[in-house]
C-alpha cells in the first residue's frame, strides 16, 4: 500500500480541525482556511468522497499540496507524530524564506 493510500476522510477532517484549527464549512466541497494570527495563509479543500470513505490518491495529493507538506509529513500529521505547532513552525519557515 502506497504512502498516499488509506487516508480516511473523517480522520483527515478531525486532524485538520483539531491540530490546525481549520474550520470546514458545509457544502459540496468543504473548504477551510489555515490562519497564522489573523492572517489567512492557506486554503484547504476536502471534497465529499465519491464512492468511499477514504481519500483517493489524487485528492490526497491535492490536499497535501495545498497544505505545503510532503507525503511523509502529511502521513506524520495524520498518524500523529506531527503536532499543530510543528506544522505552524514549518509554515512560518516557508513564509520567512518567501516560499509562501
Amino acid at each position, binding site marked *: 500500500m*502506497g504512502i498516499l493510500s488509506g487516508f480516511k476522510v473523517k480522520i483527515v477532517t478531525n486532524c485538520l480541525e483539531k491540530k490546525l484549527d481549520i474550520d470546514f464549512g458545509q*457544502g*459540496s*466541497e468543504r*473548504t477551510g*482556511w489555515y490562519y*497564522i494570527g*489573523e*492572517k*489567512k*495563509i*492557506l*486554503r484547504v*479543500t476536502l*471534497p*465529499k*468522497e*465519491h*464512492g*468511499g470513505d477514504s481519500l*483517493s*490518491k*489524487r*485528492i490526497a495529493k*491535492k490536499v497535501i*499540496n*495545498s497544505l505545503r507538506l510532503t507525503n511523509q509529513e502529511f502521513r506524520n500529521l495524520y498518524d500523529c507524530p506531527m503536532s499543530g505547532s510543528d506544522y505552524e513552525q514549518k509554515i512560518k519557515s516557508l*513564509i520567512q524564506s*518567501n516560499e*509562501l
Partner: protein
Amino acid sequence: MREPSTRKEPMSSLSDFEMLLPVWNKTERSKVMRHFPDIGSMIASNWAEMVSSYLKRDLEYREDLTELTSRVDYLASGLDSLKKELSTCKESIDNLYEEFTDRPIIKETRLFDIDEEFEVIEPLPIVIEESDDEVIATFPEVEVFAVGSGEAEAINNLKREVSKLYYELINTPDEQLGRVPQSWKRVLTKVVRRVGNT
C-alpha cells in the same frame, strides 16, 4: 577342479591369488604353500595396497563431496538472492501496473462562464483529470479544485468553488491575507468581474 599353477615366481596381483580360491582348503593348502611359499606376505601386501587405494579414493570422494557441498551452498545463496530480486521486480511491476491502470486522462480546457453574478473577462484555464471513479476539475493558478462523478458535475462544482473563493478573498482585507491568497485575489480580479447584485 582346476590345478594350481605350477609357476614358482611370486604372484604379481590379487587377481592371481583369487584364481586360487577354489583350491584354498586344508587338504591342498600344503600344495599351494609349496608352489607359493611367500603367499602370506603377498596377501598382506595386496590387502594393504587395496586398503590404501580404497582410503585414497575415500579421501578423494570426501574432498569432492566437500567441494560439491560448498558449490550447492553457493548456488542456494545465489538462488535466495535471485528470489529476493524477483520479488522486488514483481513488486515494482505491480506498482507500475497499478499506476498505469490508475492513470487519469488529463486534458486542459477553459471556462467561459462562472455564473450569472460574474462576467468572465478572460477564459479561466482549467485541468480535467478523469479516472474510473472520479473526475477532478482544477483551476491550478488559484489552487481550487472540485470533484464530480462526471466531467460536467466536476466543472459545475469548480465554478461554485471559484465563486466561493472570489467572495472569500474579496471580503477579506489584503492585510489579512497571506502572500499566496493575495496572489489568488489578484488573479481572480483580473479574470472575472462581479456583475450581479451580491
